[in-house]
């Protein structure tokens, strides 16, 4: 089986204050189905740009990107939108909820653009909320929810369309450590369900939860623990499934 994510030599630069910053430089990367990967680096290391590229929010200047068996680097904007709505779930740093929509409606959002019928949408969204433990809060407005609850709603939204890849950018950045830990436990649960998760972070406690750690510096991968974790992962999964 092909890896879910495979980039070969992707680069992205953008102008900043008169000079051109090479945010991601010649990154080649493969991420298998079911992996839980943390991309770590200091601010300015290019990790957010890499996430935008992997999440098809942005297009690389050069290199190839194969996502889920499809060549996506040169895909049109509408084509990328379709991939995002069906196969990618985003979790942003600040709980990014529509303030004038209820929790349930926020979870429904990706399904609207994926063209799912309203009744099926509602059902699917309710199930997703149930999975993050907020089944009874669907009719609440975002400002009636705590920061942790809001982030759970975002996670429900990111998983509602059953995406192949979940991308999280500093998912605990705006939370206290206890709430952050709850959120990270949710990530682990998602990982146990076999979902592929990429977390971009500079926080060690987040990175420690991941099974594979990629460190970026000046837009380049300087460390990738994939070799060891790839060997350990099937064993870990097997252990987890033991009674």
């Amino acid at each position, binding site marked *: 089986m092909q890896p879910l994510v495979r980039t070969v030599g992707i680069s992205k630069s953008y102008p900043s204050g008169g000079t051109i910053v090479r945010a991601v430089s010649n990154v080649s990367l493969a991420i298998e189905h079911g992996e839980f990967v943390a991309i770590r680096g200091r601010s300015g290391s290019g990790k957010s740009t890499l996430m*935008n590229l992997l999440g098809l929010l942005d297009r690389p200047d050069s290199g190839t990107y194969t996502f889920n068996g499809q060549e996506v680097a040169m895909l049109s904007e509408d084509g990328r*939108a*379709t991939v*995002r*709505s069906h196969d990618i779930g985003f979790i942003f740093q600040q709980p*990014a909820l*529509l303030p004038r929509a209820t929790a349930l409606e926020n979870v429904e*959002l*990706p399904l609207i*653009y994926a063209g799912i019928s309203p009744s099926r949408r509602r059902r699917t969204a309710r199930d997703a909320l149930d999975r993050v433990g907020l089944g009874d809060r669907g009719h609440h407005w975002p400002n009636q929810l705590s920061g942790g609850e809001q982030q759970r709603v975002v996670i429900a939204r990111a998983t509602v369309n059953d995406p192949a890849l979940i991308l999280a950018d500093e998912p605990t950045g705006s939370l206290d450590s206890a709430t952050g830990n709850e959120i990270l436990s949710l990530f682990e649960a998602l990982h146990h369900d076999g979902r592929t998760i990429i977390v971009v972070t500079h926080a060690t406690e987040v990175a420690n939860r991941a099974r594979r750690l990629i460190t970026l510096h000046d837009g380049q991968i300087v460390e990738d623990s994939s070799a060891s974790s790839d060997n350990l992962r099937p064993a870990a999964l097997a252990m987890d499934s033991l009674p």
Partner: protein
Amino acid sequence: MSPLESLRIAARALRVNKLRSALTVLGIVVGVGAVVCMVSVGAGAQAEVSEKIRTLGANLLLVMPGARNSGGARLESGTQPTLTIEDAASIRRELADVQVAAPLLSRSLPLVAANRNWVTVVAGINPDYLVAREWQVAGGRLFTSDEIASGAKVAIVGAVIVEELFNGGSGIGETLRIGNVPFTVIGVLDKKGLGAAGRSQDDVVFIPLSAAKSRVLGAVRGTTREALDFISIKVSDTTAMSEIQRDVEALLRQRHRIRGDAPSDFRIENPADVLFARGAAMRLLASLLIAVAAVSLVVGGISIMNIMLVSVTERTREIGLRIAVGARRREIRWQFLIEAAILALVGGLVGAFLGAAAAVAIAWKAGWPVLISPWAIVLACGFAGFIGISFGLYPAHRAARLDPIVALRFE
């Protein structure tokens, strides 16, 4: 995403800012309201003019005595009593297209019937006058030729007189004292309603011209027994109105022995012209107001554009989020376009309703028929929608062009 879905999202976004949405559409409301109101008022006024022309009697020319010069100052019309019954007779006799030339002599006089009294216009006529005015009796009969010839003391009265003096009775056969002279009421006229000057045309008493001259009015005027207040001419060929007007003028100048370019001692008027002129003035006013309304619609469009731009900026994060979770550019564009169109259309509908209400109020106040023009409503609302969409294009384009990465980071 289905169009219905876009509509729902747009309606929801507008409901969130109710006051702002309401203020935004004010320009459109005023514009559409003014168009609908003015077109309706214009149509009502036009119908009113046509109705007045109809009640006046179609194809009518009026000949009135001229004003006397008194030391250079021209006195009021009729101060030079120059028109005679013979003038009327010769107009009828000598001009082919003249169907009727009816002389009339009138004066405001006190009336008494039993214990009630009233002051009104008493006019001496012959039956030709009622032909010229296309006026029938609703009850009783017209003057006979014997009564005309002998100056009998008989009267035909308008509906207002019956109401004021005969207390609900028909009035026919009753005695009516005009000045001090007793007359017998023999007929009641059809209702005509308000005249061109705004006075009720039904507030009138007609008596035979001969009786008026010899028994009532002539006595008051004394010296000028032959003089008339005016001659009503009914023309058989409407297309020849101005020609006949010229012929009548030539004939009367000849009869009155006025030479060369000396001014006439009479005037000829076409009352329909006056009404048409009034109608035209009304239409001009209405079209000016419609021009103002068009400006208001454009201003309304600009205010929609302004608010939509504000809204796009305010909702930058929302747009970024929608794009991130899979919204296509055209779905974002549609969402904002539909919002602008809904704003304009709702404004248009509210404006049409208010405009129609204003038109009804004006028509009711002025006593005009109410004519709400459906095509004006459709056109005005359509134009409002067009304005909403065209002024919404740029903000929608701005929203659709947003870079999701930048938009998501936007504070």
